[in-house]
């Protein structure tokens, strides 16, 4: 019974994420209007049949801009977390496999990067690169690299001590073969869970950076940017800020729930516990 409830939660999370992915990637198909089309006569309108989520300060359709904003956020975060996973994962695996001084140097550098508060390091990187969607993505990638390195090094260390890795070494398998064929597949569940959880966090960081004017720049549709623009017209028409906030929440929530449910399903030790 309990197992069923958990799988229901997982199914719900998968559906929630899938819907948002489809909406984001198919934004040009689903959006009722052009995201850039302005209409001075129809500014700051409340929700109606014509504009389900209302219009913003330039008369642009809020629903359309949210769909395109999903796209911007998701693509930026997928690239960022992907790079972090690749770089951090590689560093963590190398550190675990070769041990010794290489391990010590890599993990020290990771410790230093990890010592910065996330937003502050991201702001510093953007100060260097200049505000842009890709700067925000680069900042998130750098910030999350040490997290992946730390997360994968631990379980990889245990795997390196296992008998089948010793066996593979004994029959003369190359280092690359052992790492990619014997160690990496066993880390799949850790990677899946953490990527989903970190995507959820990355969406919030990207939205925060865009909200501060450090990420995506106008007029490109972005959820964080819509919030900060809508903030100036709150008392006149709060709709674009409110709906953009809900969009960020749903997107981040979906990935977090997915990661959480995946962890429960994939880790048999946690079954029946949390």
């Amino acid at each position, binding site marked *: 019974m309990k197992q069923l409830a958990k799988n229901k939660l997982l199914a719900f999370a998968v559906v929630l994420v899938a819907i948002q992915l489809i909406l984001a990637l198919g934004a040009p198909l689903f959006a009722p209007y052009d995201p850039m089309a302005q209409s001075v006569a129809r500014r700051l309108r409340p929700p109606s049949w014509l504009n389900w989520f209302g219009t913003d300060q330039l008369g642009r359709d809020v629903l359309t801009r949210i769909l395109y904003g999903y796209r911007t956020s998701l693509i930026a975060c997928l690239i960022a977390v992907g790079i972090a996973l690749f770089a951090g994962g590689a560093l963590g695996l190398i550190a675990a496999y070769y041990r010794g001084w290489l391990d010590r140097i890599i993990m020290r550098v990771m410790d*230093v990067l990890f010592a910065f508060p996330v937003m502050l390091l991201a702001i510093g990187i*953007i100060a*260097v690169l200049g505000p842009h969607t890709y700067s925000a993505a680069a900042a998130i990638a750098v910030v999350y690299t040490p997290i992946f390195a730390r997360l994968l090094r631990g379980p990889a260390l245990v795997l390196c001590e296992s008998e089948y890795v010793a066996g593979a070494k004994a029959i003369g398998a190359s280092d690359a073969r052992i790492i990619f064929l014997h160690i990496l597949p066993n880390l799949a569940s850790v990677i899946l869970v953490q990527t989903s959880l970190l995507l959820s966090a990355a969406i919030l960081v990207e939205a925060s950076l865009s909200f501060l004017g450090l990420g995506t720049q106008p007029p490109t549709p972005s959820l964080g940017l819509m919030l900060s623009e809508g903030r100036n017209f*709150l008392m006149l028409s709060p709709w674009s*800020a*409110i709906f953009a906030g809900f969009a960020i929440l749903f997107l981040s*929530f979906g990935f*977090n729930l997915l990661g959480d449910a995946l962890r429960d399903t994939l880790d048999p030790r946690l079954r029946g516990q*949390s």
Partner: protein
Amino acid sequence: MNRVLLARLIDLVIVLFGVSIIVFLMIRMIPGDAVAIMLGANTEITPERMAELNRRVGLDRPIVEQYLLWAGSALRGDFGTSLWTGRPVSTEILLHLWPTLELTFLALLVGAVLAVPVGCLMAQTRGGAADVAMRVSAIAGLTIPSFWLGIVLILLLSAWAPGFASLGYVPFSEDPVGNLQRMMLPAFALALPILANLSRLVRSAMLDALGQDYVRTARAKGLPERRVVYKHALRNALIPFLTSVGIMTGYLLGGAIVVEQVFAIPGLGRLILGAIAERNYPLIQATILVVTAGFVFVNFLVDFLYIVVDPRVRA
């Protein structure tokens, strides 16, 4: 105990050294000539002016010497003068530090204090529909963008209590009531994700502790259930909680920078965003260095407390 502490101290020094190198190199990775950017659009850029500024900033020396000079004066609290206001950078930071620190502290207080009873409640009502509902709402709390929550709170308050001052900042020493009144909403908005995170942690630590032998012993002795939960289990459950509180401060400091913008609080967020807009690199550098060093120290203190609280680490 001294050996553990010594090892942590060495870690602390190495991490601070690494942090200072990254912050130092940041300014040198800016594309284009940082000096030309610093001169700004208002002045004509001549080779003499460039050379003058190069000498003043120390960019004409070898890079190792530059780092040593910079780090040496940073250790003495001297981060140079702000390129725009002409005031010492340290003064600028001190002026903006208090609102951010107060906001961070209040949010941590709200989050951590509420997380203990909420987490215990979650642990005691485990299983069934209530469990799933609590888990889902904890994840929702974790993923609510705090800056958006702030905006929604301002909107709600302006509808229900139009006279309530929720924006801006007054120092606590001038008007304690007005200060706390204005800090209430931003602290709550900032605290919610922390509350969600920490209460989940307390819940799983409590479930862990409640299954231990010493809890069974306490129950077997016939102690009342409340005493078992709050005295025997909770005390042990709080140890992992402590480490998380340290890590949370980093999140809070970053989050405070964003939430400050929503509530028009003149803190470090305003300082660093202004500095980015004016390309005031020494100020950006110093702010990042000071806040990160503070965060590293907080985590060191937490580790130290951990050693004091948990006798097992001492061995």
